[in-house]
């Protein structure tokens, strides 16, 4: 298909789909309802003009805007993975809205509600504009990391507010979302330890190969390494271990992001193996503290552990990024 043909096909099919959209729904409407408002078309006419069309306008506007916002973020941050939510503005807004609904009884869509959302979004924007990275235009990946950190913190706060509203903390299947620590007996926990130690020693043994990869694939080839094989093996090992851990505790956020980054920023380890060892100690210490906190903050309630790790580690992480 030539370039020109592509455009023609795209525009024609878009026009056809947009034309058909308002007539599709739980009630399929007849086309005459557009202009006929009497007799058998009265109901269809009202559904079309007072429900479907306004909704369609909203939906199309949001879709178009999000796509353009995403495109602009991808260009500006030079990152194909960037999307509109990446800097944490919208999770700030969501948090603001839920706070407004929960504590101030504001209904969604009201001007007051939007104002509270704006307040939180404004805070996030201020944070960014004040930061050194933003002013100097350097370290784009750090800005994105900072946004990820904010996202994590806001979503845990959101979870806390939501659990306050429903008077339960991470009960039922929701607990998998933010992680929870089950009570194992001694032999179970020892078996868990042994299996994970086996995996970890595998990773430790691969440390040298991973060091080789950090020099770039072509250098790794001259070392006699095969980058594709090393990455494949690493992916296999980590996936297996991650499956085991997640099936016991659910997904505990933030440790995997924060601990290695803090270790790098603080210790500058000279090898991947040293990075692994310090990270292992740091991660163990961090989750141990988080677990104690989660059980002692509001006994006998147990906070979801992922919320604690995020609220503990989040600010620390953001502060470290901010300083550098």
């Amino acid at each position, binding site marked *: 298909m030539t370039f020109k043909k592509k455009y023609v096909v795209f525009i024609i099919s878009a026009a056809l789909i947009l034309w058909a959209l308002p007539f599709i729904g739980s009630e399929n409407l007849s086309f005459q309802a557009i202009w006929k408002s009497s007799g058998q078309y009265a109901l269809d006419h009202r559904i079309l003009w007072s429900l479907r069309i306004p909704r369609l306008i909203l939906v199309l506007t949001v879709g178009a805007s999000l796509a353009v916002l995403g495109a602009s973020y991808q260009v500006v941050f030079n990152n194909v993975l960037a999307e509109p939510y990446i800097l944490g503005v919208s999770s700030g807004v969501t948090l603001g809205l839920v706070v407004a609904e929960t504590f101030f009884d504001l209904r969604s869509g009201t001007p007051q509600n939007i104002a509270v959302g704006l307040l939180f979004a404004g805070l996030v924007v201020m944070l960014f504009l004040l930061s050194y990275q933003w002013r100097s235009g350097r370290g784009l990946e750090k800005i994105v990391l900072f946004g990820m950190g904010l996202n994590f913190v806001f979503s845990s706060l959101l979870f806390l507010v939501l659990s306050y509203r429903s008077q339960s903390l991470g009960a039922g299947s929701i607990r998998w979302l933010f992680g929870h620590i089950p009570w194992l007996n001694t032999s179970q926990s020892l078996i868990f330890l042994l299996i994970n130690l086996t995996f970890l020693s595998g990773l430790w043994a691969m440390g040298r*190969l991973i*060091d080789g990869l950090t020099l770039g694939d*072509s*250098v790794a*080839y*001259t*070392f*006699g390494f095969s980058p594709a094989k090393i990455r494949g093996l690493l992916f296999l090992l980590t996936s297996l271990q991650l499956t085991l851990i997640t099936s016991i505790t659910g997904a505990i956020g933030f440790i995997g992001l924060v601990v290695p980054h803090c270790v790098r920023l603080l210790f500058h380890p000279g090898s991947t193996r040293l990075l692994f060892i310090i990270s292992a100690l740091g991660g163990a210490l961090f989750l141990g503290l988080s677990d104690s906190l989660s059980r002692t903050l509001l006994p006998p309630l147990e906070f979801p552990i992922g919320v604690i790790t995020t609220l503990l580690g989040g600010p620390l992480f953001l502060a470290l990024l901010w300083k550098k």
Partner: protein
Amino acid sequence: MEKITNHPFFVEALNVQLGFQPRTPLSDKPISFQLKRGLITGLIGPNGAGKSTLINALVTGQSIIRGKLLCYGIEKNRVSKKDSSNLISILPQEPTFPRELRVKHFLELAFLPSTGLLKPLPSVESEQFELELNTLSLKPLLNKYLKQLSSGERQRVFLARALLQKPRGLLLDEPTNHLDPKATSDFWQIIQICKNQFAIDILVSSHDISLLKKECDWILAIKNGALFFDGTTDDFFRSDITEKLYA
């Protein structure tokens, strides 16, 4: 390794066709050439001519559709893991590097392939590093982080890493691309010293014609995936072949 040491040629191409997809070689004409040892060979050609593909093929053994590409008489796929690192090393065009690493730790990584997975790497203090560190005057930089270095210093560190691998041949892929004129001439001064001091064979790709004229003994020019010129630097610059190459 005995055979390698006595082999008369650094790189040999025997009817080679290169390409990324098995059915579509860069050119229908196969490439054949032999690079003698002890020389600095300049690899030139227009963008997209296949310079990087050739260098990549030497390093990985991939993208060779037909023919044989040999380094010291051996195909890449037949080199044992143990010998691989002492055969050729490379200074990639856009080297990736861990920014938070200190120079000394980065240099120690050159001994990864020869040390084995469980033994500790030799320390930068040991005598295996002495000659390279002195030749490239890197001692003052050892405790700095890679991210703190200037482009020129960083390129010197990358070169030292490649040399510490103790290779017989060295591939330089547009090594002075990001360097200012002073750093460029410093870099080449070091290259000339290294060539003699370490008895190393060098293949360098570059767009800087005047530099190649000054520094190289031999020129290999490729255009549209085919061999365009293979001869001494003097012969290359005596003719009007440069204009034809980029025409």
